[in-house]
């Protein structure tokens, strides 16, 4: 393992301090806890909180700021934060209009956030939540926890953050989250595993000429391993999975988020983006919004994920395009 660190067990604390100290005009760290909260909390707007295990930087703390998240709760690497931490964040983010939690669909995250929600409700704070499950790589059957929450979560942050900024109520934000989540779908391809610093070795190993489709952002196994192919072929495979999931219809409007998983250079991400946009055009879709870069990573995993969001309401597009003051959007 070759990493730019001091001590593996201090990595999360030092990362959070580094982020907050680099952007003091935007961010504060709550004393005693790994919570990043925006400077200058607006009065009487719904607080939007997200969080989860660390290792997905810039998610989630990089999206804290005006127009997006009120606070982010950082767990240990790939490990959900604890209920008391989340509860602290809820209390700090509540300015009288309630707090909304954006949770990714992992059993640990759900249990910890639900316990925190219970604690907050006992204190009389209005809390509601949504669970993002955009990863279509995993079959959603009665035998699993359902689909995983991955890069599409960032689009949810953006849209709900804009709604909160515009003065939406907790109930309106809840309704908006339900509508948008069902229109967001993601699938990824990995070129390598990720190394958790305290573990010191990759969670899985792919040969030099091997890729794996559908790997999760913690290195959960995907649905197929095969020989490395040119970008065009990889894109073709991913789009062939996304197409029936929506399903695509001519002239429908879509937003695209191309997300690097941590170790894939932007040069390669743009090559991938070029192929994605070409192929979506040949599907006769109307691409109205595109973002390319590292938004929800898996530490040092090489690979990319492709998120599509079907724009059913022009207000969603306005919310995606509205200005924010964050480190990473």
């Amino acid at each position, binding site marked *: 393992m070759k990493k730019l660190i001091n001590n593996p067990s201090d990595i999360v604390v030092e990362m959070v301090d580094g982020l907050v100290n680099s952007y003091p005009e935007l961010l504060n760290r709550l004393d005693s806890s790994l919570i990043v909260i925006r400077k200058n909390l607006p009065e009487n707007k719904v607080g939007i909180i997200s969080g989860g295990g660390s290792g997905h930087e810039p998610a989630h703390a990089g999206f804290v700021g005006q127009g997006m998240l009120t606070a982010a709760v950082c767990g*240990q690497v790939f490990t959900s934060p604890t209920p008391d931490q989340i509860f602290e964040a809820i209390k700090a983010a509540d300015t009288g209009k309630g707090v909304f939690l954006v949770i990714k669909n992992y059993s640990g995250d759900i249990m910890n956030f639900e*316990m925190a929600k219970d604690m907050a409700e006992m204190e009389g704070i209005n809390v509601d939540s949504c669970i993002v499950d955009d990863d279509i790589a995993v079959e959603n059957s009665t035998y699993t926890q359902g689909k995983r929450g991955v890069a599409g979560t960032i689009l949810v942050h953006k849209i709900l953050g804009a709604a909160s900024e515009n003065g939406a109520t907790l109930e309106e934000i809840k309704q908006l989250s339900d509508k948008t989540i069902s229109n967001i779908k993601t699938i990824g391809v990995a070129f390598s595993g990720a190394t958790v610093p305290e573990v010191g070795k990759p969670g899985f190993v792919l040969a030099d000429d091997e890729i794996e489709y559908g790997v999760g952002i913690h290195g959960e196994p995907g649905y197929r391993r095969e020989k490395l192919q040119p970008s065009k072929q990889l894109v073709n495979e991913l789009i062939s999975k996304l197409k029936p999931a929506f399903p695509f219809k001519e002239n429908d409007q879509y937003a695209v988020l191309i997300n690097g998983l941590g170790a894939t250079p932007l040069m390669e991400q743009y090559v991938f983006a070029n192929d994605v946009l070409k192929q979506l055009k040949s599907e006769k879709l109307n691409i109205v919004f595109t973002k390319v870069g590292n938004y929800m990573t898996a530490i040092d995993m090489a690979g990319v994920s492709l998120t599509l969001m079907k724009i059913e309401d022009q207000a969603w597009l306005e919310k995606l395009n509205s200005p924010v003051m964050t480190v990473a959007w």
Partner: protein
Amino acid sequence: MLDTTKVLNWLNEFASLIEQNKAYLSDLDTPIGDGDHGNNMSRGVKAMQEQFAKSSFESPSDIFKATAMTLMGNIGGASGPLYGSAFMEMAKSAKETSDLGTIIQAGLNGIAKRGKAQTGEKTMIDVWQPVSESLLANHLTQQVIDTAVKSTKPLIATKGRASYVAKRSIGHLDPGSVSSGYLFTAMLNNLK
């Protein structure tokens, strides 16, 4: 009879077993989970022992409550709320009874409720359930614990992170069941 000294010895031995097997627990968690069960459990039991060192306890119930709070606040992931809920229910139960079988059964119910899981889903419940039954019938042995832990190997995970790999979880021990096995081994060594 439960007394505070025995309960503290039990939980301190549990902490030692976790520490000794930290890397093994994370290795078990790598193919079917996210490879951090050992580190997470270790963080939790260390915090628990620090809490023990600076507290004096009136009753086993108080110890269980302190254990619940420190595990819940330090493990993270799914194991934090699950072990936390187990010890919280055990704390409540220990107020009413000193029967270990009844107390462990309460812990089991806490886990089942929090994790919305039942037996056969390749989770720690697959160890807590048989252990609690054997305790109630008064014939818990190390063999019962070992058999329960091993019984998770052929199961398909339908709850927790291992459920994402579905059939590929067959042939792997469930890490949470192994750490629960340590809890009960330590219990057997100190409370018999």
